[in-house]
């Protein structure tokens, strides 16, 4: 009965997002994942300022070296410094991975929610999904490159142009599973009582989706996000082999891993670095996602 006796709140109302942040902070996995992720991002973007060997500089006399003080990660078959290449490759892979994943996630969740929620759009949107699932990936990418490479190069310059193209290519070809999964969940959730309750008090559709449906399909979206990053990083490397990606002297984690596979027996450390980097990035995003999901779940919050 304290509320009644004290009609003026003593504290300003806590916003929902502060609660979320509190919960997130106290989630050990999320915190560690977040720190790890920031560490990786900082290393790949800020590292080159402290480690000033150029990733494409060839020092042919120093080729195939193991780890040493001059080259902590060793050198590759042309004598390029692996640490510099890991950092340069990381900045490409992380940015491609994150942006492409976000694009795929946005497309997938949007189409999934809309298809699941609005019965009229379900058929056309899901047939569209079927179509995209059925299209052969390689010819599709080849056509995209053929049509858009030159205009994008002209508009944004070669590097930006290729970046946009690759992100779009990966995003557009990987949103379908997310859309199917989200739609499946939405179909079930929109029949639940709380949606009915919200609807009965006259909640508009867009509010219904953002406040009631979306938070409840967050966990499959989070899983898609973590898996999506790994897929995007690997797909980017397979684009390079086809000659559709970045120029060949441009290192990325996926490409470093692929190039090193041939030397697996001679120089195992060369596959180790990119392999571990990709895994750690994916793991950190996974824990971040776990924490975020728990923080956004009001039933767990405060437990």
């Amino acid at each position, binding site marked *: 009965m304290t509320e009644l006796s004290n009609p003026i709140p003593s504290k300003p109302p806590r916003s929902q997002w502060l609660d979320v942040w509190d919960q997130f902070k106290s989630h050990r996995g999320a915190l560690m994942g977040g720190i790890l992720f920031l560490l990786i991002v900082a290393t790949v973007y800020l590292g080159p300022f402290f480690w000033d060997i150029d990733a494409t500089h060839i020092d042919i006399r120093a080729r195939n070296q193991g780890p040493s003080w001059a080259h902590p990660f060793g050198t590759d078959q042309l004598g390029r410094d692996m640490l510099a290449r890991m950092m340069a490759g990381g900045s490409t892979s992380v940015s491609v991975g994150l942006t492409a994943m976000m694009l795929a996630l946005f497309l997938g969740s949007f189409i999934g929610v809309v298809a699941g929620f609005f019965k009229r759009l379900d058929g056309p949107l899901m047939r569209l999904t079927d179509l995209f699932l059925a299209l052969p990936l390689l010819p599709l990418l080849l056509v995209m490159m053929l049509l858009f490479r030159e205009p994008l190069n002209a508009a944004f310059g070669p590097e930006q142009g290729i970046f946009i193209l690759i992100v779009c290519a990966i995003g557009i070809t990987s949103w379908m599973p997310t859309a199917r999964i989200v739609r499946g969940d939405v179909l079930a959730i929109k029949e639940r009582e709380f949606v009915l309750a919200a609807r009965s008090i006259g909640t508009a559709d867009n509010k219904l989706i953002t406040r009631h449906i979306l938070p409840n399909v967050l966990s499959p979206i989070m899983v898609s996000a973590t898996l999506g990053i790994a897929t995007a990083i690997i797909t980017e490397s397979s684009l390079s082999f086809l000659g559709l990606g970045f120029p060949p002297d441009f290192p990325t984690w996926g490409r470093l891993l692929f190039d090193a596979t041939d030397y697996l027996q001679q120089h195992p450390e060369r596959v180790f670095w990119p392999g571990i980097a990709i895994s750690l990035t994916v793991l950190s995003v*996974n824990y971040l996602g776990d924490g975020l999901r728990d923080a956004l779940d009001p039933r767990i919050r405060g437990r």
Partner: protein
Amino acid sequence: MLTFTIRRLVLSIPTLLFISLVIFLLLELAPGDPMAQVPLTVPPEVKEKMREALGLGQPAPIRFWKWLVQFFWIEPQVMIDHYFGTTFSQGDLRVISWQTRSPVMDIVIQRMPQTLWVVGTAYVVAIFIALPIGIYSAYRQYSWFDQLGTFISMVGFSVPPFFSGVLVIVIFSVQLGWFPSIYDTTHVVNSWDSFVYQLQQMIMPVMVLALQITAQLSRFMRASMLDNLNQDYVRTARAKGLSEYVVVMVHVLRNSMIPVVTVIALGIPAIFGGAIITEQVFKVNGIGQLLIGAIQANDLPMVQTLTFIFAVLIVLFNLIADVLYGILDPRIRYD
């Protein structure tokens, strides 16, 4: 539900025709040349002649029409002839691959066994491992089992098969000499020993593939279980005095299956589609290798036929998934 299924099945015919048209146009537009793998020593005039002999001189609409006729009219006749000994298809031209100059469907059927053996087994193994892991991880969230499962599945998913495949070959074939590194598609299983050999040559590709699929499935299973474990109905069920096993394995599991069913339904066409990289690494030479080889050689009739078969499977299994949603959660209504 039955009317829904029938309506969807009827609707899928125009959908599939449209998909086949889009695939055809895409392949037309894509740069490439069936003569790309012919050595440079063969002069361009000869290559031009060879292209004409493949029928490339004809305009695109005619080629599309021919493919439709061959695929939907002649191929079924060939199948009937094969099973009943009739001669409907005598003299008709079937869908012919440009690489091998032989009927595409014959090669597809030839490739089926190894693809189903390897990719199919990998899927079954993965489902049997992933579901229990996902359920238990969610039930004991943040226990050491869950943490370990998370770690292994994330690393497993991050390591692409072009690397993990080579790694297991180096360990198990080169160093230990336990398993063959090259899959023998001519191997016939007719005795215990030959079955053991079949297992030996399958085990590495199955391991590599199953790791990826398990990682993916168990994550979705876990996430979905977590969503449901805190729902009110679970509390109600427990309060009713139902045993923990029944609560988790019947009530929660059933409600958590929707995303998992979706993922599995998306994966089954992939079984028939093969696993391109894994098949290449282990020389399984199944459907996946057939498709990538055909794309590289710009063997358009082959690519068109294969992708269309996948399209049929995708549409079919997505329909099955939709029907399963209705069974799993009777509140879901489509009509």
